[in-house]
């Protein structure tokens, strides 16, 4: 037994040394896979990746190693993935900012053509909540109130260019009202500001803000998805409450460098979808407010293209300046 495995190892070493192309013939995956995450450990992006990685390693038969490369709203990690060897040994957690970065930052890569998109892993939506002192219970009342007091209502966000900011910008863009943006550094301080009444309005990630709403600290008005969220089926969507077509989701996906062989993309796709379908992983994602998706590479590519063009328009119209 032991002898045979030594022979096998030696053969492998020989093959590796003799011809690099021989590696391509070894059944994929033959070595650990690098999973790039654009944020430091601890954020939602990282938690999504860490929820997926163990099962994914199990199914692929090789370990999937998470590499956190934080910085510039995930564009440093995305840049690395765009220019990595297209051999299937580098994959990327596509961060929600992927759709907005082209309009906000100067990038050294093409957000569409430099990638082979694998699947949309999960999607979460935001919940529009207001301070109880604001006399608006529904989207219609809020629009009417905002029209009477243009520029008067303050809304908080977790930073310029984040979905908490852009949800509000899209809302103003589609309804023709005007609010004042008060940015905070991160979701925690933004939520504190809403609870203390420093700002009157906030679009926050569902699981974080819903418990504040249930405790009566803030009032839930509407969700930003195209469908009601399973976490709170009693809360209507913005779209069904008078702003048809309004939709903001926070999307986490998976991609490989462009030119990654189709067979490898298919293998990764098949296994990651199995991961998303396993009950413990999908429950973990749902607890974070993210609904597991797992669509086809074609559907996901179309989704990314659509999101990039949509947010490009909103960011331009709102006059948000990046670098």
């Amino acid at each position, binding site marked *: 037994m032991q002898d045979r495995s030594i022979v096998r190892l030696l053969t492998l070493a020989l093959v590796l040394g003799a011809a690099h192309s021989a590696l391509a013939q070894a059944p994929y995956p033959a070595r650990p896979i690098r999973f790039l995450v654009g944020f*430091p*450990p*601890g*954020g*939602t992006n*990282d*938690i999504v990746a*860490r929820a997926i990685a*163990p099962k994914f390693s199990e199914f692929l038969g090789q370990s999937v190693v998470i*590499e*956190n*490369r*934080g*910085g*510039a*709203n995930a*564009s*440093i990690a995305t*840049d690395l993935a765009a220019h990595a060897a297209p051999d299937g040994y580098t994959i990327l957690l596509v961060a929600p900012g992927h759709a907005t970065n082209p309009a*906000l*930052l*100067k990038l*050294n890569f093409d957000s569409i053509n430099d990638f082979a998109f694998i699947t949309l892993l999960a999607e979460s939506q935001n919940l529009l909540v207001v301070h109880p002192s604001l006399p608006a219970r529904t989207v219609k009342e809020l629009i009417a109130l905002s029209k009477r007091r243009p520029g008067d209502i*303050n809304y908080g966000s977790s*930073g*310029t*260019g984040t979905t908490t900011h852009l949800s509000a910008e899209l809302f103003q863009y589609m309804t023709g009202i005007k609010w*004042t943006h*008060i*940015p*905070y*550094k*991160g*979701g*925690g*301080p933004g*939520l*504190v*500001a809403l*609870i*203390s009444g*420093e*700002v009157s309005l906030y679009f926050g990630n569902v*699981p*974080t803000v819903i*418990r*504040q709403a*249930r*405790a009566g*600290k803030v009032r839930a008005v509407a969700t930003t998805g195209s469908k009601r969220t399973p976490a709170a089926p009693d809360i209507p969507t913005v779209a069904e409450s008078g702003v048809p077509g309004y939709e903001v989701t926070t999307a986490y996906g998976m991609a490989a460098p462009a030119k990654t062989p189709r067979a490898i993309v298919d293998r990764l796709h098949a296994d990651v979808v199995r991961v998303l379908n396993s009950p413990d992983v999908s429950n*973990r994602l749902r*607890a*974070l407010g993210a609904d597991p998706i797992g669509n086809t590479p074609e559907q996901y590519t179309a989704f990314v293209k659509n999101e990039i063009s949509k947010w490009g328009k909103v960011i331009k119209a709102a006059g*948000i*300046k*990046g*670098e």
Partner: protein
Amino acid sequence: MDLLANLALGFGVAFSLENLAYCFAGVALGTLIGVLPGVGPLVTIAMLFPITFHLPAVPAIIMLAGIFYGAQYGGSTTSILVNLPGETASAVTCIDGYQMARRGRAGPALATAALASFFAGCVGTLLIALAGPTLGEWALNFGAAEYTSLMLMALVASAVMTQGDSAKGLAMVVLGLLVGVVGVDVNSGMSRYSFGIPELVDGIGFTVVAVGLFAVAEIVVNLESREPREVYTGKVTGLMPTAQDIRDAAWPTVRGTAMGACFGVLPGTGPALSSFATYMLEKKLARDPSRFGSGAIEGVAAPEAANNAAAQTAFIPMLTLGIPASATMAVMLAALTLQGIAAGPQVMLEKPDLFWGLIASMWIGNCLLVVLNLPLVGIWVRLLTVPYRWLFPSIILFCCIGNYSVSNNPFDVYLCAIIGVLGYVLVKLECEPAPLLLGYVLGPLLEENLRRALLIARGDPTVFFTRPLSLVFMIATLLILVIMVAPAARRNRQPK
């Protein structure tokens, strides 16, 4: 009494052999990993957090809390031994702790840090149990205007920190401000001083600045001296603090705990600000302020107590309001969420065993920390007898590993080296690095809150004087200015 019954429930939960084991494992792991600079509580918790997926809720949270305390304390150890601050809060400990170590008093410094932390931890835990919800609500009174006035007060008070030349101190604060504003501006989303380098878009990390200024610069200065003198005095005078040490450290510990407990509740400012603030306070209160900066035990006890008390009360907004006060707390909140527990106003009622079990295990965690670390003091101190020519390459190596691990990017290592050169130049110019660090931490916070307050007030500057809490800080700022200027004016009138 309710509190006693609740605490009894908590200790009942936490004192099972299994939970004690998880708590101990957490504290030990945290201490080990926390010794690396940059790998502070946040990174440690985030990396080890998948382990807790397979545990039930109570042991999972208890273990994470243990890691948190351990990592927090690990940073102090390296600050004292080799001038290597692991995170914001322990940078202040470097100033006097490292000087104590150089004088052969590393043992008492480490023991004092452990005991002061333990005291602060006990008080902090009791505070959460007694007044958690009230304190959580109190923190909500702090809006942008209050933060602005508080920061202003802290910056003005920081002039006290400078040794001698106040012009140099001021210059250092301003330099720190400039380093602090690198990166994307929160209000406009514009990049400042990033020169098109993507790594600079998020600003320069704290670890990079602190390790460069303290550890790297110190090593360069030590190596420069022609005759290879040993950096540490060979004679180690006792491992434990003397009776005099304990007398000296007692009140600073109490004051530090009080300051830390207040600041910890405020989201976003927490431990760093509290350790700077207590250090300044102790220096002002000391009969002989010149001892500070050359190994005053108060300079170790007070910031260590403050930082641990703040770490403790930082749990309050998370547990009672469901709001994470820091990135570390955000990970803890995520951990709770994944265990199916909605932290927030209802957690005390819905899951009393978890809430009180966590509080009891906080105390146990603090206790285990002392049990684990006091015997280690001897081992740590022996480390310093290693010849410097072997010690310094290892310190540099740890600096590199720590900086690299923050975002797995070699850029941070290079940047740290550059800041090390800056630190060396500053030593040559006899400029203190501490005010620079303070400017770096407070400057961006001051700017952010000032602009936010004015944005909300639609440009009306009277907002800082019409809100009562803000007015209190403004008056205090004025008083500090008067106190500082008065003795100087008196001296000028009566020349020596």
